């Protein structure tokens, strides 16, 4: 999944997580972290390394294995003046505190008629490709998309990690922040000082007139590699959009691109059934129907649990080959 690296690419996605949190903790004393093994241990994915040392035990709290208490306490703290950043170790475990994500956090502001705000961030390691099996490999951003009232960020580069974390932590709305396990070791340019990436703005990472590839997090490098291969082998110019956030969703950027390319392939890691690509396709098949010259394709996870063996996992998650094949099936049109 590694992107092509350059001499500028000096920081890892992993280190950028801790960096992004630290920048906000320095700015705002209301920012506090909680989660399992995030303190002295620096987190299971080493994404909170250094925070405990810099900010101490009153800002970085180790918790029991109690996902409901973690997220529920973050909610209570957010309602009363803090800006908690809660870690749920693997995104699969969001299922253990789903009530808070589905029923409590996104609804309390609305159902109290605007009496409270819940400025919190739930960070979590998302996605597959590492052979962790069915219960530790899922891309579950689509679970969160089913719930109105949550913002959703899923960066694909180290700089976006920092910039989107800044927006997330400063947001007065609750944000679920997906850090992709498969990207943690990837490198990129460091985020400049004060870097803030606003929510709801897709990045056009590569321009092209023949087909639009819409991607997120792990599928961004996939789409870029596929685009290179299509350019080289097929002389097809693919435009690659990195959505960066699912809510707010930058469908305007997608429609703008499809206006030029007339062809759309959505590349998403979550399963096809109920995957977020369905929401994008819905908007395009409605508002962009007249722009389309070919069927719309989704290269998504297969509708099966994730198998352990690497070779089996490759069968069921998006790959460069699958993206290339999907585009080829369209350019025949």
């Amino acid at each position: 999944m590694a992107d092509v690296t350059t001499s500028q690419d000096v920081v890892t996605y992993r280190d950028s997580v801790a960096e992004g949190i630290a920048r906000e903790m320095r700015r705002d004393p209301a920012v506090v972290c909680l989660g399992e093994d995030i303190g002295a241990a620096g987190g299971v994915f080493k994404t909170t390394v250094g925070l405990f040392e810099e900010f101490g035990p009153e800002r970085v709290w180790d918790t029991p294995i109690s996902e409901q208490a973690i997220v529920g306490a973050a909610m209570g703290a957010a309602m009363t003046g803090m800006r908690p950043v809660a870690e749920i170790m693997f995104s699969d475990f969001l299922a253990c505190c789903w009530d808070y994500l589905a029923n409590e956090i996104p609804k309390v502001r609305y159902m109290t008629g605007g009496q409270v705000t819940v400025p919190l961030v739930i960070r979590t390691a998302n996605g597959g490709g590492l052979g962790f099996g069915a219960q530790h490999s899922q891309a579950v951003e689509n679970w969160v998309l089913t719930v109105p009232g949550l913002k959703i960020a899923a960066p694909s580069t180290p700089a976006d990690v920092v910039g989107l974390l800044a927006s997330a932590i400063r947001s007065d709305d609750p944000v679920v922040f997906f850090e992709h396990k498969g990207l943690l070791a990837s490198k990129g340019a460091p985020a400049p000082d004060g870097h803030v990436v606003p929510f709801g703005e897709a990045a056009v990472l590569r321009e092209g007139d023949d087909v639009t590839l819409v991607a997120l997090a792990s599928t961004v490098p996939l789409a870029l590699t596929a685009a290179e291969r299509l350019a080289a082998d097929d002389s097809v110019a693919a435009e690659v959009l990195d959505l960066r956030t699912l809510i707010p969703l930058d469908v305007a950027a997608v429609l703008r691109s499809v206006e030029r390319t007339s062809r759309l392939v959505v590349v998403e890691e979550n399963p096809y059934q109920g995957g977020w690509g369905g929401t994008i396709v819905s908007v395009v098949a409605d508002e962009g129907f007249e722009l389309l010259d070919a069927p719309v394709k989704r290269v998504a996870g297969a509708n099966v649990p994730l198998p352990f063996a690497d070779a089996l996992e490759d069968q069921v998650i998006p790959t460069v080959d699958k993206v290339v094949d999907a585009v080829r099936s369209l350019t025949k049109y």
Partner: protein
Amino acid sequence: MTDTTTATGLLALHETMSVIRRTEKAAHDLFMSGLVKGTTHLAAGHEAVAVGARAALRDGDYAFATYRGHHHAIAWGATPEECLAELMQRSTGLNKAKGGSMHLTKAESGMLGSYAIVGAHLPMAVGAAWSARLRGTEQVAVAFFGDGATNIGAFHEALNLAAVWRLPVLFVCENNFYMEYTPIGAVTAAEHPAAGRAQSYGLPAEVVDGNDVVAVRDAVARAAVRARAGDGPTVLEAHTYRHYGHSRTDPGKYRPDGELERWLERDPLTVSAHRLREAGTSGDDIAAAEHRAAAVVERAVANARAAPEADLSEAFTDVWADGGAAWRT
């Protein structure tokens, strides 16, 4: 604040309980006549828990309640009119008619919501207490919950985390001996569903007469002192009884004969009237308080009836902190 340990103070508590009782009666009648929609879970019978607890706490403290939460909303300063207007889907409702009976909230006075998923608010109260500690205030947070809530996972996680972090939070169980229609004893492996679990977390616990506003106030006051002193959470189990059924039109037929009647003998208002007379308050003074309460609720009903329906545009506000509901560009 009124000194609630004096006869005058106690009369104020009695009056608030009377306001709650009459509001619940009004809610019931309005439901029956079709003006209150959806569902209600009335707290008639539970008044002493709400009023006693509030009396023991300070302005700035936090409360989290359940779908059976009218009494807490009122004890924490919501007016009967705001509450009834909410139930009647009026634009003047406490939650702008967006919440309903199960979600009464008076955030400006620290009553941070009523939650309808059993047990979910216990971790929130833990978080509010954590926040108080982080901000270096002396605030405490209270979670009120039912006996049935003690069997759900969030209860366990909340108590453990609060105990480990020694947070200023009070867990106040309103044990009314029933979940919906099932007696709590039939589904709970502890005689005292809340207090009997406290030692699992090394927490002090007290079983208290939940129909005696003074007993509740004193127990909560003790717990609050501990909490503010940094000695951590306390579990209180207040025994009480709901006079109506579980919700809406439930006639409560699953209750054994005579049970309700026995509890009515220890109606919190009877108990507090008795205490008032013992403290030397005259029957006239008590009657005057009852009349004031009745007048407040009558006016509330009239005003709520007369208030405009929910404003349709409200359907698309308050999702986000900017007031809007935009999910896309």
